[in-house]
């Protein structure tokens, strides 16, 4: 019973955290030069999805070098999926890096692994904005530089409505 309760809490929290990460990635694709550079390597219209084992799947499409959210019907060119919420939750929470999830076989990847590597770097840039440095030093092997304004990022993240990223 207790296990079920914890799982449900993880599920609800994970869903919220996934939406924050999705919005962060969209916001950073407008402000951070590192993310913009990475997106330059993707063809226009490229779609990725991240399934963290919560009911919502994060789906993003590259449009003119920016990330926009895409609909559930869009077929992903790169689909990263966690095998279970227990593997995804520490990553969503920020206590584990996405590389650790790869190392521990917690995820599956459908599509080009070269794109997955670039996607991991984009997620890591988002982590650098969202998490305090002392947390990153403990969890991440690689802490990327922030190549954009932190203020502009948080302004977009907090004040822009989700429709702005569609």
């Amino acid at each position, binding site marked *: 019973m207790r296990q079920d309760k914890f799982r449900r809490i993880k599920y609800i929290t994970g869903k919220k955290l996934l939406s924050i990460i999705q919005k962060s990635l969209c916001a950073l694709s407008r402000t951070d030069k590192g993310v913009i550079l990475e997106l330059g390597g993707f063809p226009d219209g490229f779609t990725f999805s991240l399934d963290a084992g919560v009911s919502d799947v994060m789906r993003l499409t590259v449009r003119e070098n920016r990330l926009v959210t895409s609909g559930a019907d869009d077929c992903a060119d790169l689909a990263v999926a966690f095998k279970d919420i227990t593997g995804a939750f520490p990553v969503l929470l920020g206590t584990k890096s996405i*590389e650790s999830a*790869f190392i*521990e*076989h917690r*995820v599956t990847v459908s599509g080009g*692994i*070269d794109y997955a*590597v670039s996607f991991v770097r984009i997620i890591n840039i988002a982590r650098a904005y969202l998490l305090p440095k002392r947390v990153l030093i403990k969890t991440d*092997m690689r802490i990327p530089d922030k190549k954009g304004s932190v203020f502009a990022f948080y302004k977009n993240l907090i004040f822009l409505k989700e429709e702005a990223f569609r």
Partner: protein
Amino acid sequence: MIPEYYEFQNKTKILSGKNALENIAFELLARGAKAPAILTNSRGLENIVTSSFEGKGLAAGLIRKNIPADAPVKTINQIAADFKNNGCDSIVAIGGGSVIDTAKGLYLMAAHESDDVLKLSGSECVKAGKNIPFIAVPTTSGAGSEATLAAVIADEENGKKLAFLSYSLVPDVAVLDVKTTKSLPPKLAASTGMDALTHAIEAYTCLQKNPLSDAYATAAISLIGENLPLVVQNPTDDARLAMANASLMAGVAFSNSMVGIVHAVAHACGGICKTPHANAVAVLLTRCMEFNLDVCGELYAELLLPFSGPEIYASTPAPKRAVRFITETQALLQVLHRRGRLPLKLSECGITAEKLPRIAAAAINDGAILLNRKEATEEDIMEILIKAM
């Protein structure tokens, strides 16, 4: 130290030694196969296999020779169509890494009844499909593909080498017969042997390492240190079989712990300049070890024991063992260069200076780079490449 979490799998049945080839018929029958597709680049080994089929209700449904290097997508798609049209039900791959990787591509398509292998690319994303018995017979001692979950397939249209990672790609049976590597020229024995050594070293040092992969990696390194110079200069059946076993063990090791920066850069060299994989790996190994030294020093120091033996290990002061391991590896390269004409520079492998930025840019997006213990930037890779020219 035991990792917080790891996974390990090795389902392959291994037939090693004299007349192992002749037991392929039995292994196919035991798995319910009747019409195997045989993919090969060998000269005549397939005849030994097919003659053992006689009177057992087995007949080759398809024999495809002259498989091109690097397992191109187009070839795999074509063979898969022939496999279906000829009513084949199993696969026997006799050849080096490219042949076995082509067979893995074929396996994926046949098991999933797909018309394009590219649709199945990725990591652990393929579910078990139709049962297609798969037997691999390596004719080089290097790639280790006969026991790995990985296939590297060339997408020639986009100039890329794509990685396919799935436990379903691990062959059911690996056959290590002394006959298969008998005609291996010294140069190929040297370069493929260095590929096996690199698999074992990277498996032991990269981030996905675990106690079981460590056991396979160190056992492989010990066999390679002892037998690689022998198979290049004065090959005996024992030395050849030892190298075949070492290559397989290194394959099991890296199949479960993956590889690192050497392979990331070598894949990029292969994708852009068509550099033979084993040559690129041999040239890059010690340069990349020097790059990793500050982070992997302790692990390199441990490898001096299996590689060079207890006397050298004991006579080297502990703080100097890591560097000694690198110099011992360089010394082996020099021996292989003298005896087997192994290239020592990338410029000897057809790589020109103007291609280096493209290689560095491709290497930074290779999956193996994520698992290297030390973070590498594009600039770091450029530096390694320049040193290796």
